[in-house]
């Protein structure tokens, strides 16, 4: 008797589970469900939609259910250059394994390969985005992950080109291990809280590799930003952590490894600035600590503007830069200590590892160029060398207080 009831309960459970448990739907061009839109219409929350190889051009696909969309062997979803491809309006949506191509260029709409609006707990992983206007676009969302995607734009003019990963008004977003090429800005952050940008590679974008504004308490670590039109811009933000990134080969009249504008209480540590026109440009920054970075082969390793105060420069290496530091002010309210300067030619007679006389990283010539940029033609002339030496002995126009009292004799590893 008892076992019979048990059996009935068990049967009921199995039946119930068959009805409500997530099911898997298969989209294939030859099958009964031949479009993604159809599959989404038929799906319930928490279903999985498996897309077989093939080409799907369905215009705008709206995902308004909690579904997982998985591509098998990278099926192609083509926007044909008109409008948006995926618009996600439901939380808990996961998209992976697709090639998403050709979202439409528009001056009025920010058409994306995948746009997520007001959602939570979504993930976009392991997709290929080719020639989209914007590739991934997140607005007013939280707790989402964008990882392992390959994103390539068309590199047209800035106005005809959108951003690779565009995040606007979001919190707790993780961007990890993506490769982004040829967009306007590789990664764009505006009004983001607690965002993490880790292990990404952003190269040959028209404007910035990373464009970061009004985004407090965010972190970016171990990314490479290479050969972008204007480098990386980090602006109007508090509490940013920038660790172990590589800023490489950003050449041009207004190109920066990092452009820091109005940044406070932040950390820049263990980064490499190599072959940039200007490695690090700081304007209106305060209480930023810059430690253990390598500045090598830049035009200017550091440009420190007059309105920057209480910044700390410790344990950095400055090697083979045309100018180590340039500034437009005679005052200095920043601290430099224990950095290694390849230009330093003092001795260490007491053998404590630090030079016996302070180092003045700002040369007279760099001050001259600040006010008269055209005088750059005199670079490496004998006349300039004499001026620089005279100035280093009797400082007249260089900021007197801008010195490193304990310059290292050996590089920091």
């Amino acid at each position, binding site marked *: 008797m008892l076992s019979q009831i048990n059996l009935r309960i068990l049967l009921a459970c199995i039946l119930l589970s068959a009805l409500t448990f997530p099911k898997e739907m298969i989209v294939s061009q030859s099958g009964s469900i031949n479009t993604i839109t159809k599959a989404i219409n038929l799906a319930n929350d928490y279903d999985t939609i498996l897309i077989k190889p093939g080409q799907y051009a369905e215009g705008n696909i709206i995902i308004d259910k909690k579904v997982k969309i998985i591509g098998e062997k990278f099926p192609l979803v083509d926007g044909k250059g008109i409008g948006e491809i995926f618009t996600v309006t439901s939380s808990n949506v996961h998209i992976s394994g697709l090639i998403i191509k050709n979202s439409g260029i528009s*001056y*009025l709409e920010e058409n994306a390969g995948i746009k997520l609006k007001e959602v939570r707990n979504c993930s976009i992983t392991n997709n290929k985005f080719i020639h989209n206007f914007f590739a991934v676009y997140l607005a007013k969302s939280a707790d989402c992950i964008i990882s392992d995607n390959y994103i390539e734009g068309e590199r047209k*003019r*800035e*106005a005809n080109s959108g951003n690779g990963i565009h995040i606007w008004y979001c919190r707790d977003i993780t961007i990890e291990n993506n490769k982004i090429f040829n967009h*306007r800005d590789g990664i764009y952050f*505006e009004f983001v809280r607690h965002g993490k940008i880790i292990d990404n590679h952003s190269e040959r974008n*028209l*404007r*910035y590799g990373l464009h970061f*504004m*009004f985004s407090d308490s965010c972190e970016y670590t171990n990314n490479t930003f290479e050969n972008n*039109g*204007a480098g990386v*811009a980090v*602006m109007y933000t508090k509490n940013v952590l920038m660790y172990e990134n590589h800023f490489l080969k950003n050449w041009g*009249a*207004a190109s920066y490894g990092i*452009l820091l*504008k109005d940044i406070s209480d932040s950390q820049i540590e263990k980064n490499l600035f190599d072959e940039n026109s200007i490695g690090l*440009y700081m*304007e209106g920054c305060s209480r930023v600590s810059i430690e253990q970075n390598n500045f090598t082969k830049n035009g200017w390793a550091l440009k420190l503007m007059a309105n920057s105060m209480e910044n700390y420069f410790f344990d950095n290496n400055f090697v083979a830069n045309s100018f180590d530091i340039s500034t437009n002010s005679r005052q200095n309210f920043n601290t430099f200590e224990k950095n290694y300067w390849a230009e330093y030619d003092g001795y260490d007679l007491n053998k404590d590892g630090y030079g016996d006389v302070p180092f003045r990283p700002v040369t007279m010539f760099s001050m001259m160029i600040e006010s008269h940029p055209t005088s750059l033609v005199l670079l490496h002339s004998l006349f300039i060398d004499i001026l620089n030496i005279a100035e280093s002995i009797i400082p007249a126009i260089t900021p007197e207080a801008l010195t490193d009292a304990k310059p290292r004799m050996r590089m920091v590893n």
Partner: protein
Amino acid sequence: MLKFRIKTVLLLLIIVILILSGCKAGPEPINYGHDECEFCRMQITDNRYGSEIVTDKGKVFKFDEIGCMIEYALVKNFIGDANQKFLVTDFAKPETFIDATNAFFIQNENFRSPMGSNVMGFGSEISRQKFIAESGGSLLNWVDVIELVKKRSM
């Protein structure tokens, strides 16, 4: 002797004219994708929002949008100074400058300007009304825009 003098005078005249013509103060077109905003230091890319100040000394400052231009002008005390010329782009005709003080403005949050003030300038009331009819937004004049930027920067 006289001939020589005439020659030198002519030569001097030509030089003076050349120098003066070089000094002529006037708006300079923005090289989109290359020029840098004087205030926020960003590269200027969106050709519907570029703005410019031409000072009484003939100096030209370029901005990526009107918000940056006004913030810069506030810092430099240019606002209210009739000798400084303010220019904004006509949203309806990208890359064409119009006088900012007499322009017609719209703020619409759906049209994101580079630094987020979301203000667009129009050269005529007709083109502004056309935009309003299509996309909406609030109407502003030059003074309203200044007040708006002041509020934002506080």
